[in-house]
């Protein structure tokens, strides 16, 4: 049944597996804390989710094509620092404040390109190749920032990401758009179809005469650019770039992608699920603080919530097909 829908582009029902969990938590929180259902808190929540979502949207496409990128966290750091340096060196004088955006995304693209070459052209396992770049790029962040927090961004640059439009934080809008585009690409376009194919049976695509390497390369560059974008969003929202900015973001991103129902074995992916996963993760973090759970218990509770979420989404319990 659901696979039939899929052929005609409808959302598969089990992409929404996390929705009940989210509603559950939301309802519980509304009862437990009066400050939960306030517009301000919703804005906080959205802000919290946005950066992770930008990365996770790209990661969904990548994982669907049976790839993975552990270097996104470091890339976030480098693009943030890159933007900071852009202003520090006064390049905005010649290229304007918005040049920093181009620069940050370009930095991301460059790292993505390196990953792409390692994985697609040389044929390294994505996991180890991007683990390597993860360490190396973090090193570059330390070097370029000389270990310091860099400030002094042009307010116009900051406005782009941290301002409001129709009362919605721009970061959230950026994230929302990213997710929308990702969903569109995955479900409606040739590229998306081929990415699914790539994750399902690379040999088949190759035999059928599809430019597999170019496709892979592209997907890593795309991931890098999105990580770059996330880095800029981060820098703007902090109006600072830190040496450790983005550490472990890759774990968060992969976590929400998988929670959402995308299989690390490739072939099947859902941006919808990823969005819900990101929301859930942010919701948990937010709830814990609103409930004032003691510092030392937080990590544990987060673990508990994730476990609960994935268990409820388990193919066995939801009856969905196991990948």
């Amino acid at each position, binding site marked *: 049944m659901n696979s039939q829908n899929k052929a005609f582009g409808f959302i598969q029902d089990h992409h929404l597996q996390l929705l009940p969990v989210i509603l559950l938590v939301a309802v519980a929180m509304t009862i437990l804390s009066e400050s939960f259902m306030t517009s301000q808190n919703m804005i906080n929540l959205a802000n919290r989710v946005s950066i992770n979502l930008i990365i996770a949207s790209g990661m969904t496409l990548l994982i669907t094509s049976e790839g993975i990128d552990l270097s996104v966290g470091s890339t976030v750091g480098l693009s943030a620092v890159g933007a900071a340096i852009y202003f520090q060196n006064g390049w905005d004088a010649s290229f304007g404040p918005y040049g920093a955006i181009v620069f940050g995304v370009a930095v991301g693209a460059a790292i993505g390109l390196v990953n792409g070459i390692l994985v697609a052209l*040389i*044929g390294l396992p994505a996991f180890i190749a991007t*683990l390597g770049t993860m360490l*190396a790029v973090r*090193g570059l962040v330390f*070097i370029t920032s000389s270990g310091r927090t860099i400030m002094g961004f042009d307010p116009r640059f900051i406005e782009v990401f941290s301002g409001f439009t129709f009362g919605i934080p721009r970061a959230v809008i950026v994230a929302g758009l990213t997710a929308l585009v990702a969903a569109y690409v995955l479900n409606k376009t040739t590229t998306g179809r081929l990415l699914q194919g790539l994750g399902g049976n690379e040999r088949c695509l190759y035999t059928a005469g599809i430019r597999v390497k170019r496709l892979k390369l592209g997907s890593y560059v795309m991931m890098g650019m999105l990580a770059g974008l996330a880095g800029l969003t981060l820098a703007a929202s902090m109006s600072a770039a830190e040496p450790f900015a983005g550490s472990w973001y890759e774990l968060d991103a992969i976590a929400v992608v998988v929670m959402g129902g995308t299989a690390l074995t490739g072939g099947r992916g859902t941006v919808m699920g990823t969005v819900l996963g990101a929301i859930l993760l942010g919701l948990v973090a937010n709830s814990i603080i609103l409930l004032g759970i003691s510092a030392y218990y937080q990590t*544990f509770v987060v673990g508990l919530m994730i476990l609960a979420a994935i268990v409820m989404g388990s193919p066995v319990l939801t009856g969905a097909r196991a990948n």
Partner: protein
Amino acid sequence: MTDARIIGGAGRESSGLITMLPAAIESMFRLSWRALRESWGLILALAILVLIFSQASPYFLNTLVLERILTNASFTLIMATGMTLVIATGGIDVSIGATLALSSMVAATLMNLGTPVLPAAMAGLLLGAGIGAFNGSIISYLKLQPFIATLAMLSLARGMTLIISGGSPAFDLPEAFTSAFKDEMVMVIGLGGLLLTMLVMHRTRLGIQIRGIGGNENTCYICGVRVNALRIGVYAFQGIMAVLAGYTLTASFDAAEPTAGLSTEWLEAMAAPIIGGNTMAGGRARLFGTLMGCLILATMRSGLNISGVPTAWQQVAIGGIIVGAVTLDVLTNRKKVS
């Protein structure tokens, strides 16, 4: 059901010690030969590293350094051995760092509460095995993806550690405990564990079946392999290895640190097997490769430290070397792995 077998019953009786012993020895030789053939790219990489570093620093070629490298490699090896099996089943376990911290903290706390060393240590090991078994169970029975299942466990164990410790380390542990896991004991545990595992993987059905699960779970199931039990076993084993690693760390610190095993420890334990030519897809268990992976990582770190390379540049170098080593390996012999 052997009676139902139709063909090839010939010469079953003759299978005794006399025929087995040479067989065992011979196959051991064949194995080590194959291991060398499979991983000469890595051996080459290691040799290159040693060459470079010995040029870079006069202090590098030095028994003390060699000892350090072997110890550090052994430490990673303890966890990497378990990870190799997990990866062979097509899984992954990101919770080992947290498991390491939690069980060490529990054992240490028990000791400080006056529990005798042996029961306390046992408790820790059991806890580790339990955590592993839990991972294995939810992965097997709820068909959860190993990555996310163990990621949840990471938070749980990490959190538990903080709750128990209240954020501060548990120190001055009984001499009996620390001395049992200190210094050369790290090497003993690391290499001992590796050899034992190699033996199991090559001389018992478990070896075949574990790789089988990674290769084609469905087939194994149909052929009557007890897939779930086996997988749970593998994760439990990984848990135990994580605890042992934790104990060596705790012993050398003479304290159980709440922040132990936070990053590098488990990242390297996951990197080593893959550097060693094991594929995330599963179906392979190249333990010798894993050993090489650990040696490469340890040599790299010590080498960079001793050559006085600044931390930031070290990070870059480490990333580069990991990629370089794997590239060399891929280009020399390994089939493309996607």
